[in-house]
């Protein structure tokens, strides 16, 4: 549901100082410039591998943690059709997590190592999933707008240079188009329903507005840049460009339902760029660093699942089998 290409300042510094074999680097960069994909067995710069692992892993964590706020409402879906759709969507998200863990595994980090880094807090997941789904309308808004934002991000990333990640993203985008459509359907039903249904939808939009602006990461002027990540087609569009594309596609689809956004400054200027009030980037940093409304619960649930399921995994283990990095 999400892939972060934001570099820490330390990473950005290292990106520009690591020295690689110039001949191999040239061949690698020439391959990417020709539009060809990099496959797991190919030579690749240390930092390319590292940044891809970080990014794909975070994306994978986001998928499985993202299933938690939505799963909250499976038991209380308003009817059978909505319940079926929500179960299918949550199952898809967990499946997407598996696909992405597999893609990251081809780069040499095992799924178990990634899981441990999630549980210890070393590895992050998308900030939006640290917010609660208070009402059924949150499920509608997540399905439509959080998935919409994710599709903008993922469609762009699927044009990247690493073959296994691109293949996973293509499958994911295909499946998420269903998430988006059922989310839109759900939003439209609430918006065209009773006064109360409209009120809970408006309330959900009000609460999700800022996390959605946070979704694409800090403004370009604040985020650490790496020309190399662009050159290597690990990052394909800037945070601001993706955010703008998202607002352009989805703001009109909410406004046409006579639902508003809680920001008097949200408007498109003459250059086609969306302007909005400062969505409180300090809050974004606070929540990423653990101080969000649901961070503790999300990790506690994952830890419980790991520990409660351990005896099953141990019973299934065949110690004579040796793990090997998957092929693609």
């Amino acid at each position, binding site marked *: 549901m999400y892939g972060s290409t934001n570099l820490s300042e330390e990473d950005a510094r290292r990106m520009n100082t690591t020295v690689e074999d110039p001949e191999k680097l040239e061949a690698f960069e020439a391959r990417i410039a020709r539009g060809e994909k990099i496959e797991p067995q190919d030579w690749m710069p240390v930092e390319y591998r590292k940044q891809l692992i970080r990014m794909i892993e975070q994306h994978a964590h986001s998928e499985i943690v993202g299933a938690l706020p939505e799963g909250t409402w499976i038991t209380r879906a308003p009817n059978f059709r909505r319940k079926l759709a929500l179960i299918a969507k949550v199952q898809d998200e967990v499946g997407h997590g598996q696909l992405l863990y597999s893609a990251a595994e081809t780069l040499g980090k095992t799924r*178990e190592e990634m899981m441990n880094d999630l549980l210890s807090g070393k590895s992050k997941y998308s900030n939006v999933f640290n917010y609660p789904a208070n009402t059924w309308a949150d499920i509608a808004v997540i399905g439509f707008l959080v998935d919409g934002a994710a599709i903008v991000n993922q469609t762009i990333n699927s044009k990247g240079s690493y073959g296994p990640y691109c293949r996973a993203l293509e499958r994911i985008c295909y499946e998420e188009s269903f998430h988006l459509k059922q989310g839109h359907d759900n939003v439209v039903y609430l918006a065209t329903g009773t006064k109360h249904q409209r009120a809970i939808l408006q309330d959900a939009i009000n609460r999700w507005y800022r996390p959605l602006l946070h979704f694409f990461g800090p403004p370009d002027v604040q985020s650490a840049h790496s020309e190399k990540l662009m050159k290597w087609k690990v990052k394909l569009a800037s945070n601001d460009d993706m955010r703008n594309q998202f607002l352009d596609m989805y703001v009109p689809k909410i406004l046409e339902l006579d639902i508003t956004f809680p920001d008097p400054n949200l408007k498109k200027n003459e250059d086609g760029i969306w302007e909005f009030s400062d969505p409180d980037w300090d809050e974004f940093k606070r929540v990423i660093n653990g101080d969000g409304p649901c961070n503790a*619960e999300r990790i*506690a649930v994952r830890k419980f699942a790991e520990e409660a399921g351990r005896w099953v995994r141990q019973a299934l283990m065949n110690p004579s089998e040796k793990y090997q990095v998957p092929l693609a």
Partner: protein
Amino acid sequence: MSSLDPRVNRLDFKKATDGEVHTNSHLITWEVFHQDKRGKQAVHVGIVHASTPEMALILAKEQYARRGKTTNLWVAKTSDVYTFSTHDEDIFETTPEKTFRDPAFYKVRDRIEKFQNRNKVTI
């Protein structure tokens, strides 16, 4: 912990204090091949982690056959699949040049027409 999720509220978190995946819990991976229609080829779609082929098939069904048409799935242990090294990609480089293997390489109409004109052949 008080959660909005009734399922979370039913968990006994006191029982789970050691939330670490033990590193000996790697299950091996299986390469999955998907056949959408009877008569079509099975195509590689990705991997699953499993301890037995039966478990690999069940997980492959959940992962790669959730929508659309499926006739069958195949799984093979990753360690049983052999490939060329990507460094050997150049061994296939000259294949597209072998136009003599291509039916479109064989064009005789011009020659037939010249022959017919030269020899006044009519049918």
